[in-house]
C-alpha cells in the first residue's frame, strides 16, 4: 500500500518531468529548424507569462476559494519595479534581470500582504470589489507618479526576455508552476484548501486562518510580480492602462476555464487562450466570433462526460486531472 503510493507519486513526478522536457525539446527543434515564424515565436513569452499569472491566481481562487480581481495590479507592480531597475542600472544583463525579478516579485508580494489584510474581514463579493478597487488604484498611482513617467509610461526597457531568451523564460515558468504545485501538496496547501472548504472547522483544528489567507495573497502576488517583470522586458514599453481590470478578468477567465483548483488546467487554458487570438488573426472578421465559440466549447467540455471519460483514461487523464478530482471515488 505504502509502496504503491510512493510508486504512484514517483510516476506522477516522472510524467511531469517528461512533459516539461518534451515541450522544451520540441520548442528548440522547431525553433532551430526555422519552422516557427515570427508570429509564433513572438507568442512564446506571452504564453509563459499568462501561465504564471493563471497558476498564481488559481492559488487564490481555486485553492483558497476567494475571488480576486486585482491580479493585474500585482503584475503591474512587478513590471514597473523590474523595469525601473534595468533602465537605471548598468550591469551585465543577467545581474540586472535577476535583481529585477527578485525586486519585482518582492515588492508585489509586499502589496499582496497589504491587500491580504482586508481579506481577513471580507469575503465573496466584497473582497472581489476591494481587489478590483486595488487594481484601479495602482493604475491611478502609476499614472500620477513622476518616477513611473505618468500616463506616458516607461520606454526603452531593455529587451531581456524576448523569444531569444525563451530558455530562461521557460525555466522561470516551470519553476513557478512547480513551486505552486509543491505548496498545494504540503501542510501549507492543505491549510489553504481547508479554509476554502470550511473556515470555521479550519479554525477549530488550530490553524490560524488569517495567517494563511495573507500568506496565500503574498505568494500569489509574488509570482504575478515575476510575470510582470517578464512582461516589461518582453515588450520594452509599459503603460499604466495595460494593467486595468480587463487584464485581471482575462487572467480570471483562464483560471475559470482551466478549472478552479486545477494547475494543469490553468496551464493548458493559458496556452490556448493566449495563442488563439493571434492564430485567428488571419480570420479577421470572424476572430472574436471564433474566440467566443472556443470559450463555449471549453466550457461545455469542462462539464461534459467526455472529460470524465478522459479522466478515467490513463493517458489523457494525467493531462487534465485536477487536484479535486483525484480525491474522488
Amino acid at each position, binding site marked *: 500500500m*505504502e509502496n504503491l503510493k510512493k510508486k504512484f507519486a514517483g510516476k506522477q513526478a516522472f510524467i511531469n518531468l517528461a512533459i516539461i522536457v518534451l515541450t522544451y525539446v520540441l520548442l528548440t527543434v522547431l525553433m532551430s529548424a526555422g519552422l516557427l515564424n515570427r508570429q509564433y515565436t513572438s507568442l512564446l513569452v506571452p504564453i509563459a507569462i499568462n501561465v504564471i499569472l493563471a497558476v498564481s491566481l488559481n492559488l487564490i481562487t481555486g485553492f483558497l476559494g476567494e475571488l480576486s480581481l486585482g491580479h493585474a495590479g500585482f503584475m503591474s507592480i512587478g513590471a514597473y519595479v523590474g523595469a525601473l531597475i534595468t533602465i537605471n542600472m548598468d550591469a551585465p544583463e543577467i545581474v540586472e534581470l535577476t535583481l529585477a525579478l527578485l525586486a519585482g516579485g518582492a515588492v508585489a508580494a509586499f502589496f499582496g500582504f497589504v491587500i491580504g489584510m482586508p481579506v481577513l474581514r471580507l469575503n465573496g463579493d466584497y473582497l472581489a470589489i476591494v481587489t478590483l478597487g486595488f487594481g484601479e488604484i495602482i493604475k491611478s498611482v502609476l499614472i500620477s507618479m513622476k518616477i513611473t513617467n505618468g500616463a506616458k509610461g516607461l520606454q526603452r526597457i531593455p529587451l531581456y526576455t524576448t523569444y531569444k531568451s525563451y530558455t530562461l523564460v521557460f525555466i522561470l515558468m516551470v519553476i513557478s508552476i512547480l*513551486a505552486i504545485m*509543491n*505548496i498545494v*501538496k*504540503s*501542510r*501549507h*496547501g*492543505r*491549510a489553504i*484548501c*481547508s479554509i*476554502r*472548504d*470550511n473556515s*470555521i*472547522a*479550519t*479554525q*477549530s*483544528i*488550530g*490553524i*490560524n*486562518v488569517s495567517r494563511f489567507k495573507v*500568506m496565500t495573497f503574498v505568494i500569489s502576488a509574488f509570482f504575478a510580480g515575476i510575470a510582470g517583470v517578464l512582461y516589461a522586458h518582453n515588450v520594452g514599453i509599459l503603460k499604466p492602462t495595460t494593467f486595468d481590470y480587463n487584464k485581471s478578468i482575462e487572467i480570471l477567465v483562464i483560471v475559470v476555464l482551466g478549472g478552479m*483548483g486545477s494547475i494543469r488546467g490553468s496551464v493548458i487554458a493559458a496556452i490556448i487562450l493566449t495563442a488563439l487570438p493571434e492564430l485567428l488573426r488571419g480570420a479577421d472578421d470572424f476572430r472574436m466570433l471564433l474566440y467566443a465559440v472556443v470559450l463555449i466549447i471549453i466550457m461545455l467540455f469542462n462539464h461534459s462526460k467526455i472529460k470524465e471519460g478522459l479522466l478515467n483514461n490513463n493517458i489523457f487523464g494525467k493531462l487534465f486531472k485536477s487536484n*479535486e478530482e483525484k*480525491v*474522488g*471515488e
Partner: protein
Amino acid sequence: MALLEVNNLGISFGGLRAVDNFNISIEKGQLYGLIGPNGAGKTTVFNLLTGVYPPTDGSIVLDGVNLNGKSANEICRAGIARTFQNIRLFDKLTVLDNVKTALHNQIKYSLLSSILRTPAYFKAEKAMDKKALEILKVFGLDRIHEYRASNLPYGMQRKLEIARALATNPKIILLDEPAAGMNPTETQELMDMIRFIRDNFDVAVLLIEHDMNLVLGICEQVKVLEYGRIIAEGDPIKVVNDPKVITAYLGE
C-alpha cells in the same frame, strides 16, 4: 484542580440570554454529558468554550491556563477540540487529508521545505501519513482513506469529524450530537469508540446528545440545560429521572 474549570459563563444575543451562569468542572479522562431540550443553549456552550463566540461573562480555565479572549485556533492549540452539530468536514479533501490537516501543529516543516521538497518534507509527510492512518484505524476509516470526505455516508462523516478533532492532540474533546443520524448498531460502535479514545488517547470527553441510551451508557456525569440555565446535574440515572428534567423535555 480539574482539567477544565468553567465559571459563571454567559452570553446574550441581543435580548436573548442564550447561556447564563454556566459552571462545569471536568476531570482528566472524564466522560461528561450535556443534555437538554432543543434550543436550550448546548451548542452555544460549545461555541463559547471553543472561542467561536466571545463570552459576555465568565471564565474558562484549561489545565491552569486561562482561555478568556483567545481565538478559536489558539483554544484548539491549548487543548480543546470539537465536532459540529452540522458536520463541517473539508469536503473536497480526502479522508486522509482531513486528518492530516488537523496534524498541522503536531508535525511541522517550513514553507521553504515544501517548495523545495527537502528531506524534512518527505520525513514529516511520512510521519503524518502514519499518524493519520493510526487515528483513522480507530474509527474503521483507514481502509477508505483515499475517498473524498463528501462521498462518505453520514455516519462515517461523523466518525471522521471525531478522528480529525482527535488528531489535534486535545486534552478534552467536545462532541456535538455525535450519534445524530446513526442507526443503533452505529451508535453502539460509537460508544465503544468514545470509550476507546478516552482510554488510549488520554482525553476527557464532553458530549451533547439526545440519545439517552448513549448518555446513560457512557457518561459518568451529566448536566441538564434549559433556557440557558443548568436545571439539574450529577449521576446520569438520577438526573434523567428528575421530575424537573422530565418536564423540561416533555413539557408541563
